[in-house]
């Protein structure tokens, strides 16, 4: 058992785990984001502080991104952490 688990601390705050919020099949919000690895209108792959996250779908648009988070809209088919 890790220290953060034994102290009941949030994993995303301590370890920088990605927090993925999916709103319906139209929006994906990912926190603890680092860089965009691949972008097309059907596939977005990005690196987070712990591993990669891939979003596939149709008509994908990066609504905005900054140092910490990225927001993708479009028709979301799958999100693979």
């Amino acid at each position, binding site marked *: 058992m890790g220290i953060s688990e034994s102290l009941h601390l949030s994993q995303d705050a301590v370890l920088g785990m990605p927090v993925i919020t999916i709103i319906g099949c139209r929006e994906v919000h990912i926190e603890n984001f680092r*860089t*965009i*690895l*691949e*972008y*097309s*209108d059907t596939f977005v792959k990005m690196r987070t502080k712990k591993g990669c996250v891939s979003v596939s779908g149709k008509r*994908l*648009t*990066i*609504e*905005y*991104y*900054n*140092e910490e988070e990225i927001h993708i809209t479009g028709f979301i088919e799958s999100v693979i952490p």
Partner: protein
Amino acid sequence: MRCVIRNLRGVVLASTDNPAPERFFNLCRMKKIRIWDITKTDKGCQFSIVAADFLRLKEPLKKCGMKLVILRKTGLPFFMFRYRKHYSFVAGMLLAAVLLQIMSMFVWEIEVDGNSYYTDNVIVSYLQENDVYVGCRMSKVMCDSLEQKIRKDFDDITWVSAEKSGTKLIVHIKENDGDSVVKEMKSPSDIIASSDGVVESIITRCGTPLVRKGDEVKTGDVLVSGEIVLYHDAKEEVDTRYVQADADVYVRTSIQYNNTVQRGYTCKMYTGKSVTHHIISVMGSMAELGLLPADYEQYDIVTEVSRLRLTKDFLLPVCAGRRTVYEYVTEEGMHSEEEVTQILTDNYENYLNKLKKEGIQIVSDSVKIDITDVNASMRGSIHVVMPFKERRSCDVRTFD
């Protein structure tokens, strides 16, 4: 809000034909250059960026070997730049600012709130008599003195507050919710019978009761006298005082009901033809924009006008709207017996409800309907128990 700020700073929509712009995006992120609405296009992708940040893209573009094409420039800085040499535009903006400042010095709408007995027109007319009207100087409106005047001149208004908000004057009113305030009669008065009947109950608070429960009274009889005679122990008259009689006198009486309705009626049939003209009103003067004449014989005019306002309470003396003239023809018709019976019954029920609202108890009724070819009537009498409140000045005896 974010959209407004971006527009104030200026937004550039740019596109690139690089098929793999991911490095460019990551470099922008490193340099804290915000880009948004990244969309894939056939050749590359397009995105939006703030005008100031666009100038910082030189280094990322050089590192990636990319070139950008500006598709669109929007926002305030570009707008100002485009019209920088239009002096009339600058003059127009200054003039508009001055006009707005001048307009804000006047009252352009009077709103009356909380009134039910006194209509808006009554209050507005009263205000006009006191030099408060639409178009008067805002500085001339003294809310405190206005409130005092309204309270003094309207008996049924128990609370009033005048408030200036933007170019609007709002008069909040609270009326007397209970029984209507009876104007104090200075002179002594009697309570008299307003119709024939039998006294059902009498509770006297002030004055001398002249009738008892069960007494028959005729129209004009004095029920409670305002004359109070004082006797001493030997039952001899000592003094006479005159007061305003006050009592709850309920009398069982009957009300004659007669309602006649014509069977023939005229109804409007709209032909579907209409002409709409746009109208503009500036400081009360209305101008109609439209060339098509509305030369109908019979028509209804529907005018929809909305006042120009900058904010909720910042109104301007400019109204815009439209006036539509609808043509109609009249057709004669005849109510069937069932229809006319229904109309009479509805009228009768409304009348009974009105009596009940006035505190009159309905004991029984006997009405009948007569229908002829021309009209229909409902006649009869309604037996009620009603309060008598009619007053008459009492005769004051003078002693030499």
